[in-house]
């Protein structure tokens, strides 16, 4: 399978603090790649660099073979890289439908016709299961629904790869089940490659094709879920002996 997104020795320093140190990664098209690590490992920093929030101190990002290092967030999005936020940030005073519509109007292959954009938005809202809430304001939704809304808005930009920053933390077991099924559907039905940060180990282990483990800004392991689960360093640094949360 061809590589869709590749990071070449990504380093990020904030003043004297090194948040990421020579991190390498590559994601193949159609893959679900999990990204795990203890708090402060640099996971969200890596997503911020990929999505253009800030440039890396050193290193390069290649998307479909093209160097995209240092591009602005809206340029990155237009190329086909979408993201969600760990702390959700939907447009609170806009309806669910308008939130998703904004993604459809401005993302990759942006629809300039409002009517077409509405149709695309409605089908995505159905896809994530928010059809009953489509006229509600985002601020009136529950946390789970707002997370789904953010996912829908990101999908409306029609991405080739989706960076998901913690979708499952704080959800009920039933919601976790639904969300996992949805992530699988995004890859299988929409053909979107997924790069996924998650704390809930069971979910990542069950769904990801491969997993990267970060600790203190460095990549300490990479491999298939069962390999990660049995990696000595990962168990020491991250799991602290127990595998399942």
């Amino acid at each position, binding site marked *: 399978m061809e590589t869709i997104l590749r990071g070449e020795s990504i380093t990020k320093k904030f003043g004297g603090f090194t948040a990421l140190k020579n991190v390498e990664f590559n994601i193949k098209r159609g893959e679900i790649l999990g990204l795990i690590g203890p708090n402060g490992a640099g996971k969200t920093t890596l997503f911020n660099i990929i999505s253009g929030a800030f440039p890396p101190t050193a290193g390069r990002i290649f998307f479909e073979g093209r160097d995209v290092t240092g591009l602005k*967030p*809206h340029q990155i999005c237009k190329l086909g890289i979408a993201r969600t936020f760990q702390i959700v940030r939907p447009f609170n005073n*806009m309806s669910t439908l308008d939130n998703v519509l904004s*993604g459809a*109007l401005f993302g990759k292959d942006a629809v300039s016709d409002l009517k077409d954009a509405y149709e695309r938005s409605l089908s995505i809202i159905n896809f994530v299961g928010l059809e009953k809430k489509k006229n509600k304001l985002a601020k009136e939704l529950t946390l789970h629904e707002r997370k789904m809304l953010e996912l829908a808005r990101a999908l409306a930009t029609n991405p080739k790869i989706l960076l998901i920053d913690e979708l499952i933390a704080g959800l009920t077991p039933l919601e976790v089940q639904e969300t996992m099924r949805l992530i699988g559907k995004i890859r299988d039905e929409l053909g979107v490659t997924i790069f996924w940060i998650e704390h809930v180990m069971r979910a990542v282990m069950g769904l990801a094709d491969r997993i990267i483990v970060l600790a203190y800004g460095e990549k300490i392991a990479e491999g298939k879920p069962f390999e990660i689960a049995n990696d000595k360093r990962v168990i020491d640094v991250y799991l602290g002996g127990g595998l399942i949360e």
Partner: protein
Amino acid sequence: MKKASIVQKVIILAVYALLPIIFSHSYQLRLLNLLIFFTMFTLSSNIIFGHTRQLFLCQGALVGIGSYISAILPERLGVAPWIILPVGALTSAGIGSLISAVSSIRRLSIIFMAVLTSSFQVIFGELILGLRHITGADEGIVIRSDILRGLIGANRELVYYYLLIATLFATVIIYDKIVNSRVGVAFRCIVEDEIAASFIGINVVKYKVLSAFISSFLFGFMGGLYAYYNLYICPSMFQNIDVHILVMLVFGGMGTLTGPLLGAGAFTLISELLRPLGPITTLIFGILLIILFLFFREGLVVHLKRITGQFFKKHKLCF
């Protein structure tokens, strides 16, 4: 455009068009004309502050640039005022866009933007005073090139009134088109969350600059028109009008169409009533602006909608 929205605009237009029948005295007509000027300023301020939250405290300077260019150039260059009017507007638009571009690229917070733009307002004032031989400094300029020279025999105030409401309605229709288009969606997203907006592909800088361009163009255009209407301009006309415009905007309701119309209508009359008080007017408006920002940020239109909405709800519950 939806049917309700067309009906609403036809009603507004009819009200404006019929006002001179009731207020036909030339003093009243002059007041109506001032009202339209301030309505236009408030609409323009709405585009930049109401729709993209860029605080421009140099609205007076942007109006003034249009005014001075339109006052000075026609005679100096021997060109018709009609040709200079857009030149003044484009100059204001250029400067407004530049200010917006600098602030949005450097991601200035609203406080620093206020500092930057009010400094620009001061620079403009000093420049007018400094260029005494061109601008007449404090004494101002008397303008001889009236755009309505041919119609001098007719009721000048009335002719200007209809010219102004034509301009107002062209602006309202364009405003409506923008707000209900893709650009309007971008504006809403930017007001809600700039960062989230940029991650769904919205070029935040581009849309902020676009809004600054449109609104500064209108400021400059109306400034030029004001010079030709008033036939006299001086620096004090362009001081402190930001406070007045912002009071009208915030009172009426930011991000709405009827808000600026109502706000400008109410406060043009109030400030006319307060005129005997002299400079204290600005003080009163300043205090009012603080109060509005603290307690009435949503504006009249939103509150009215809420009250009427509750009324209808109650009605349903009763029957």
